[in-house]
């Protein structure tokens, strides 16, 4: 009975799936989907090499000089529009700043506070335990200032986009005029006023104005030449760190754990081999009490 019912249920589902297949195939042939500008001209991120890359990434320690440069780019450029909600000033000691430097950096930001005499909301200089302040009071203010787009929080951005740091690097160096081939192929395509063309962004037009416009936009203290490309790399590296401050520690721990596991597994293998040594022969089966009685 089970098999008879099952037989018809199986045939039913199979026929419906194949029917759907036929319908889909017919639609594909009669009205193939049209290409869009984004499907043809969207580009994969450019290659970017960082010390945090790959399996060995940061396991001998981070490139703190680059992270500090990247932090400087964030502070002087991106922080005007983008928040960094998950990072506190105290975290900056992990990229090589001293306690005193962190104090000074925090004091340079005004964070929301409460007036101790009147109890009214006010702004006060930050302390190391504070988190980075948000540039806009709320989403409505953020939209109003950015052509109806909200600049996303950057703390996790390199984990929240396919391509990670390479995507951020490509995006902020990828602004360009609309290529003539695109115009030829899709005459209707346009970049509305207030938006900017960027082939690395999924739908090609985004509301962020090119943030890094000229070499020397920030002044590096360590003597590195602040080209647009260099600044973009540095800020991408910094955003890898903000997304996962424990990355270096994770890799270091991983090597110790794997080393131990390899050792333990070899031992376990040898133990198993020894226990099983006689299985291919006739067992010297221990006489159990019952057997003896029989």
């Amino acid at each position, binding site marked *: 009975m089970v098999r008879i019912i099952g037989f018809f249920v199986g045939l039913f*589902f*199979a026929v419906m799936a194949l029917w759907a297949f036929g319908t889909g195939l017919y639609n594909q042939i009669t009205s193939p989907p049209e290409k869009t500008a984004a499907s043809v001209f969207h580009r994969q991120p450019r290659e970017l090499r960082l010390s945090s890359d790959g399996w060995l990434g940061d396991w001998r320690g981070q490139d703190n000089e680059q992270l500090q440069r990247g932090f400087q780019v964030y502070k002087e450029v991106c922080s005007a529009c983008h928040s960094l909600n998950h990072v506190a000033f105290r975290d900056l000691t992990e990229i090589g700043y001293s306690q005193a430097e962190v104090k000074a950096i925090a004091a340079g930001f005004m964070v929301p506070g409460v007036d101790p005499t009147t109890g009214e909301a006010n702004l006060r200089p930050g302390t190391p335990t504070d988190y980075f302040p948000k540039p806009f009071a709320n989403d409505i203010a953020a939209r109003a200032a950015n052509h109806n787009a909200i600049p996303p929080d950057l703390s996790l951005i390199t984990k929240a986009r396919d391509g990670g740091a390479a995507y951020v690097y490509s995006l902020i160096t990828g602004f360009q005029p609309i290529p003539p081939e695109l115009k030829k192929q899709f005459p209707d395509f346009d970049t509305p006023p207030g938006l900017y063309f960027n082939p690395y962004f999924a739908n090609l037009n985004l509301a962020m104005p090119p943030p890094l416009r000229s070499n020397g936009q920030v002044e590096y203290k360590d003597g590195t030449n602040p080209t647009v490309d260099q600044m973009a790399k540095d800020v991408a590296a910094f955003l890898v760190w903000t997304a996962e401050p424990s990355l270096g520690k994770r890799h270091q721990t991983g090597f110790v754990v794997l080393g131990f596991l390899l050792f333990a597994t070899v031992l376990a293998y040898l133990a198993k081999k020894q226990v099983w040594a006689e299985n291919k022969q006739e067992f010297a089966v221990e006489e159990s009490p019952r057997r003896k009685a029989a």
Partner: protein
Amino acid sequence: MSFPWARHYEPKAPFMRWMDEKLPLPRLIFNAVGAGYPVPRNLNYWWNFGVLAGFCLGLQIVTGVILAMHYAPNATVAFDSTEHIMRDVNWGWLLRYAHSNGASAFFVVLYIHIFRGFFYGSYKPPREMVWLLGVTIFLLAMATAFMGYVLPWGQMSFWGAKVITGLFSAIPFVGEPLQIWLLGGYAPDNAALNRFFSLHFLLPFVIAGFVILHIWALHIPGSSNPTGVEVKDESDTVPFHPYYTAKDGFGLGVFLIVYCLFVFFLPNYLGHADNYIPANPIATPAEIVPEWYFWPYYAILRSFTVALHVPFTNVTIIDAKLLGVTAMFSSILLWFFLPWLDRSPVRSGHYRPVFRKYFWLLVIDLLVLGYCGGKPAEEPFVMIAQIASAYYFLHFLVILPLVSAFERPEPLPFSITEAVLGSDKKAVLGENTSPAT
């Protein structure tokens, strides 16, 4: 239960003798996974995965309970609290990665465990109950993982919850109210997050209960083995300890190496980038994709794109969505009927030449379904998935019963001992060369 030659527990130390009288727990362990449990001597490494599944469950419970100490199930802070775990809790990143990759590891192990059962006919008598309990565990694990994935309250958490609970709205008449009741609102929000957390905490312990029943039911006939020939004599078995404790120990080491490669070096490889974006009810992600272990069923769901009509009219009998949902749930529920669909008296695929070919086709079919389920709902992926879905149902409900009726199995060894040693002194000439019915 167990075989007459099973060793008996004889406590020697006075404390153990006292314990055996008051609460014979050591005796239970001795008889269940100790020297008192005789096991076929020819089990291969595919038999390691049951123990590994148990290990994964334990791992999820331990890491999960500690995560729950730091996690806050409230829609306004859930996302931030997982980031708090990642950044501020001592070794919190390790706990979270161990738990999220532990879920994936659990499903890898379960899939292998289940396919071991498919190939070696482990679902056949006398082990039907073991199989039924196993399928139940799989369903519970899927529910647990689905609700766990909602907890970090990222974009995929939110939209995944919305899509999956939306499946219930396909049920005629009661669907819409049912979805609202399940979610505690019109869309996933605090009410949904709280109940998902509560159930996500509870279900693993329910699973643990079912695991105990699963093992209990298994120990009545004892384990099957790669030949599928039942144990006949003492020479066919070895005591679980030390033979299989040693083998499982080695297997666990290999498993942990692979698992730790993911935890420490590729912790986000199996996840989706969008889940690092906080849930946003007004921004639909470009693609809503579940975790990889749901991809085959997601592909089946999306394969049913046309409604069932009364022929030559526009009267719909079952709309496409309901059809997809029914097919998706049926695709796993039909596993419950496997012991009665496949009536071949021979268990092991090694001795079933026709069955074996279809088995490998099923493996490929599931991989294809999984691949398509992880891709956007575009052509050619939907069309490929439609063919694969059709095969999936034909395999279990049409091909398997027919093959089991018409196939001529190859001769079986007389006994496990003969299979291992090449001869068995007690072998009776002619017995088992053609399988008994």
